[in-house]
């Protein structure tokens, strides 16, 4: 599962979704792998406004990446800074969680990730 996807996901429990603690899910005992993906500046520019930047910052640190700037780059910043573009491409699109769990900081429920596929099905008592 990509770091980008992690930025789109919260706890599936309905009562948690309205709380701020449920996002981002906290990676626990995660193994990371990295794919090589062709750079796609159009995609990166389009998706940045949809990324929750503070959450991305905290996930980056939790996964052992250098901390991000406090504010997201503007499209112009990105265009002028090829290194920033490459770093974000690596973090958001190339880095994958292959094994581990994602934990909701509100209810404590753990979602398992196996072979890169996260499972968000809830047990009956949480539906």
């Amino acid at each position, binding site marked *: 599962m990509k770091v980008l996807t992690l930025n789109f996901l919260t706890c599936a429990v309905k009562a948690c979704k309205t709380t701020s603690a449920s996002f981002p899910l906290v990676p626990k005992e995660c193994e990371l792998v990295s794919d090589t*993906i062709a750079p796609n500046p159009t995609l990166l520019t389009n998706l940045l406004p949809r990324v929750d930047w503070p959450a991305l910052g905290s996930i980056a640190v939790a996964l052992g990446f250098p901390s991000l700037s406090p504010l997201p780059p503007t499209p112009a910043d990105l265009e002028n800074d090829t290194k920033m573009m490459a770093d974000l491409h690596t973090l958001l699109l190339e880095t994958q969680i292959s094994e581990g769990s994602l934990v909701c900081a509100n209810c404590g429920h753990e979602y398992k990730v196996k072979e890169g*596929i996260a499972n968000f099905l809830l047990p009956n008592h949480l539906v």
Partner: protein
Amino acid sequence: MMEYMIRFTQVHETFRVPEIKALAVLRGIDMEILSYSPSSPFCVVKLPSAEAAAQLVKRSILVKAAYELWGSGSSYEDLHDNVRGHSEHLWPLYKKNTFRFSVDSFQGTRSTTEQKKLIEGFRFLGFEGPIRMKGAEQEFCLLEEWQFNCAKLGVYEPQSVHLGRFICGSDRDSINKYDLKKRKYICTTSMDAELALITANITLADTGKLFYDPFVGSGSFPVACAHFGALAFGSDIDGRSIRGKGKSKPNLLSNFVQYGITDQFGDSFVADLTNTPLRKARLFDGIVCDPPYGVREGLKVLGSRDPTKGKEPIIRDGIAHHQMDSYVPPKKPYSFLAMLDDILEFASVSLVDNGRLSFWMPTSNDEDQEIKVPEHPCLEIVSICTQDFNRWSRKLITYRRIPDSKVVHTVREERVKENGVSADDLNPFRKGYFKGFKAAFR
């Protein structure tokens, strides 16, 4: 503005105009349809330039080719006059080019001798370049429209004829590339390649966009969206369809590998749309899906059939049952119509402004058993296409997310909820299907 002839294929008639209109929106091309009838594959449009015509049809699935229209008539004499009057200024441009002519007769046939004679009738164009049957710089086509069943009716001349200069072919070859028969991983409900690609076009899949299919199965739609350059995401309540089975495991991702489009693979995860883990934000440019309507694939969501059951976690020998690897959460049948409402609500929350939602919906061909097209105040219906089967048909319905400033808030009509817990009670279509649509609703 110049007139162009769009030559469609003779399949999926109701999808033709929605596809071509979607491509015009996608490429920002000002297109006016001057003449078109679903019974004919010829469509005359007005476009700003030949370049625009090429952009328009290049990735179409239902178009065969686009031509610059040099003239039209109800007979060849008529056509000759029309070409002389309308396009004489164009002739010198191609005077020295290598060229070829061909004849395209819809609902009619022409022997090669006849074809040769018809083509020779255009000698007056004054082309001097050598003829090349392969790799000619310019290709001209005589497009003929014959009355249906003309041979039997004793009709020996077409109703109308056109002369066109070939501009661009379409993306029909991709149907073969993505043919399900050659795909490594499919399931019983995989969408055929042609319709999946058309759906991706109508939903405006393109480079730099994010697409999502909440009922992904073996990934037919994400693959089609990825073909057009979108980053494609998918989820399914059935993890097996995503992970694949067995040790060697062909799976959803292996389809992306097979077609060399892994850079366009967003992600896949196991989830139930009625308990989605996606956060409430405008994340996607397009949502495409074929929700299970309960015939081949049961429609289920998380939860127990008995609402009083399972409210506490089960703990055995100090281990919570639901934390074990072997745990499979219970699922219950769900109403198809309720699911459609959920999809619309999800799309209104998750699509960017002007982003599109397309989904497939089955319906009986009996009027009194027809399923109403669902509506949502934030979503405007863009097109409805129908694929007909014998007693039922399925529709591809496409919506556009209206920007919030343009939404007229009306009170949403509450749908009458289906009672019952069994799949048949919840899904009138399923019930009708298995009863052969006879008195299923009475």
